[in-house]
């Protein structure tokens, strides 16, 4: 017998005895029923309108110490990035090819590493920032949803010390249940190999529970809604 | 109503004033009180130590003695949890299972009985002191008693209640735990005492005399002037 069969056999043997559940008594083992989720009713409340969601995202971002900007055009976003590049003294940034990244990073005035078809990780290590698109922004938690397909791979959003996210207005969604529904709708059975909810810059409290940003990933996270 | 008062062992021996206060309050409210002489202890020390058959030997006569009681009021949250929650567990799948469930459903912790069962909140008490309230763990988490004692205290004249930050933290007694692991039990009690002291209260009020016993034991050793008192004694003042 394989270990797979051994383990599954022990599980089946164990489950022959119906479990006792505190407050419910002995519960007979019925077939697993499809469960209807009410998570949206329990989780933190999110407003209906775009404005309410922007404000919630903005408040969450501020609490997480992430930068958030709502800019009204791609030109404004590009100008914002150019300012940032100058202010921070960026020499090289990494990005991937996407509809927003292409137009906004076109004349940033610094060297650019494109990750699309693979890249040298030592080269990415020298980049001052990673600029990515995303799948969605989650108002409820202030999170950025990225995947290995939407955001230039796995490392681009976490290796450089500064992560810039470019999002469209319609990418701001209400809550986590909506985010998972969106993933299923977008990718179906062909999910990317990595899906990540990024909630604020990299952080740690491992030393005396004192908050420190930039533990291993980006010390700075900036989110731009371009609309 | 004919109220059967269950006086636990340590209330009988060391804190009779709490029991006497309950008798006086219940009688003043017009109820007939009886205290079965045969009942000494709910059996929790043996139960919590893992000796369930030995516990049944203590609990069974109690089940039988209280079979015909109209309502049972118990003078401790912890012993109340034993009777209400753990007797059914103890007698599960035995011929006494139904009797245990019957007893559980007609047993009330004292403050819960007053507020929930009788709907009484003002007993005309007057206690001109600053107090803080300690939630005994069993009363709080096994029986869900949090508001009842506070509702009663809110109606006591000239009483000022100041909540301590550690109101819901265990005092460290835990029955046999306090003897098996005295150092941990004491450390927990010190946290409780420090939190009570911070409020500037003169009295720690609780609906559980066993917690009071532990807290008072620590306060006395530390030479603190702070005193513990049972809720019933506060409610019985005039």
């Amino acid at each position: 017998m394989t270990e797979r069969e051994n383990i599954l056999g022990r599980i089946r043997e164990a489950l022959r005895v119906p479990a006792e559940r505190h407050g419910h008594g002995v519960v007979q083992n019925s077939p697993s029923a499809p469960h209807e989720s009410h998570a949206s009713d329990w989780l933190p409340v999110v407003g209906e309108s775009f404005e309410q969601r922007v404000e919630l995202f903005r408040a969450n971002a501020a609490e997480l110490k992430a930068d958030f900007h709502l800019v009204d055009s791609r030109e404004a976003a590009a100008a914002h990035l150019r300012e940032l590049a100058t202010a921070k003294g960026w020499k090289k940034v990494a990005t991937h090819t996407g509809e927003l990244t292409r137009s906004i990073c076109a004349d940033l005035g610094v060297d650019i590493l494109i990750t699309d078809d693979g890249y040298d990780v030592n080269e990415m290590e020298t980049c001052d920032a990673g600029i990515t698109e995303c799948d969605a922004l989650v108002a409820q938690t202030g999170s950025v949803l990225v995947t290995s397909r939407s955001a230039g791979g796995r490392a681009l959003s976490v290796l450089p010390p500064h992560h810039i996210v470019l999002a469209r207005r319609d990418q701001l969604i209400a809550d986590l249940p909506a985010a998972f529904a969106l993933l299923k709708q977008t990718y179906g059975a062909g999910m990317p190999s990595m899906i990540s909810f990024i909630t604020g810059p990299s952080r740690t409290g491992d030393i005396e529970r004192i908050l420190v940003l930039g533990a291993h990933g980006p010390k700075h996270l900036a989110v731009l809604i371009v609309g | 109503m004919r109220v059967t008062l269950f006086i636990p062992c340590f209330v009988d021996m060391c804190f009779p004033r709490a029991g006497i206060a309950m008798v006086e309050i219940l009688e003043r409210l017009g109820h007939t009180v009886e205290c079965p002489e045969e009942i000494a202890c709910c059996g929790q020390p043996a139960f919590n130590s893992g000796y369930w058959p030995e516990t049944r030997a203590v609990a069974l006569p109690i089940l039988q003695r209280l079979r015909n009681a109209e309502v049972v009021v118990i003078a401790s949250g912890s012993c109340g949890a034993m009777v209400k929650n753990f007797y059914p567990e103890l007698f599960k799948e035995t011929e006494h299972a139904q009797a245990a469930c019957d007893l559980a459903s007609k047993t009330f912790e004292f403050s819960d009985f007053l507020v929930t069962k009788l709907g009484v909140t003002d007993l005309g008490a007057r206690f001109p002191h600053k107090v803080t309230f300690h939630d005994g763990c069993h009363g709080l988490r096994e029986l869900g008693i949090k508001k009842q004692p506070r509702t009663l205290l809110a109606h006591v004249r000239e009483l000022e209640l100041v909540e301590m930050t550690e109101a819901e933290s265990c005092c460290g007694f835990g029955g046999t735990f306090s003897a098996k692991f005295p150092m941990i039990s004491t450390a927990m009690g010190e946290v409780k005492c420090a939190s009570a002291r911070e409020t500037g209260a003169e009295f720690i009020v609780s609906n559980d005399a066993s917690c009071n016993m532990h807290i008072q034991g620590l306060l006395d050793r530390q030479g603190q002037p702070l005193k513990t008192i049972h809720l019933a004694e506060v409610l019985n003042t005039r």
Partner: protein
Amino acid sequence: MNSAAQFRDDAKRLTHDLRHRELIQSALKKYEVARDAKKARYQDWESARVEASDIKWDAVNHLDAHLAEFARNAEAHGTKVHWASTGGQAREIILGIVREKNARSIIKSKVMTGEEIHLNEALEKADMSVVESDLGEYIVQLRHEAPYHFVFPAMHLTRGEISDLFERELGSAPTNDAGELTMIARRALRKKYITADIGISGANFAIAETGMVSITENEGNARLTCALPKVHIALMGIEKLLPKLEDLALFLPMLATAGAGQVLTGYNTMYGGPRQPGEADGPEEFHVVLLDNHRTRLLADAEQRDALQCIRCGACLNVCPIYKNVGGHTYGTTYQGPIGAVITPHLRGLQDWKHLSFASSLCGACTSACPVKIDLHHHLLQSRRNARGQKPLWWEKIAFKLFAVLANSPALWALAKPMARFGQIFHPLVKATRLDPAYVWTQSRELPKVAPQTFKEYWKGRNP
């Protein structure tokens, strides 16, 4: 020394260490304040707990089906799924991959199951260089000690101690600044991610319907561990299964709030296979090792089966007054605190670990804090019963038999009172000395006095 004696000795030492108690309690106070603030944002935290508990209950009680579905879907996306009944088998599987790849260096993100099966020791014995990348884990690895808390591994150390450690081990300049200390570790670990041959991670959840594992972290170290090395191995207990991807919508925020007082943890990442065609990076191979290691023994205990619902958030440790006073190392277990006291007897043997179930006041703070509503403190009671049922202490058994006789006899009970009063007259002569029969109590506390008139005496006087 056996585990019970070690527990008792360490508990005694640490409860007397006021500096240690202050450090842990003030850290956990910060947690409590943050957790309460975040919980207050939920529309209904209690209903969220009920739903989370229901989902996990169902998952655990249909574990065979969910595991099989998980493996099928993972393999369909190119993940290699391995099954290990024991810690030894899991170590062999991982060492086998390491040897096949001729790997020399390994970067790890936090893997509690790795601690459970002593994975680092096995890898080091095979001449691997193994580096922990989670800051807390890295610190305790440098100190050659076990994690102090399965969520906050280095919570017992002050900035000064960490600075001294880094100075000694890494040659860094001393500093009292948590930010600078973190940057020292960041610099030390950066190159390790890039040069490591293999990344090893744990998993917080595994999703049956998609064959993905979900990893929760704040630092980004797991993201890097799972992005850069050519091979990624995830080691996880078989109980981590959730049926549906969208179940994470509830579990990810609840894990963050209950465990660390956050709305959501910094990075919540789902891995569904190795690098796919068209993706920029990612490992060439992704292995998932499913570990039993006596979890099926816990599953077979119908009373305590719900302990397998645990999502390892650490909430029960954070609120436990025992944990707050004795600290994490005292337990001597991989999983500390109430959940450790419940599951360790199943994982490692009841008679050797039963003392953990007795080292509790049964206050139930753990049960109230548990986001998946595991009946923790009642399980401690059941373990006490199981332990004494198997192997009673002869003197305790006699004592409780006598106690039953005493409690059932009003005459004997009445007699006990004058005897106690008599004893009290002489008690001051031996009080708080080793001769005191009540020494365990009186060494630190005053004993209550038997009242001049007991309640029963009062009652008898009223109703003669």
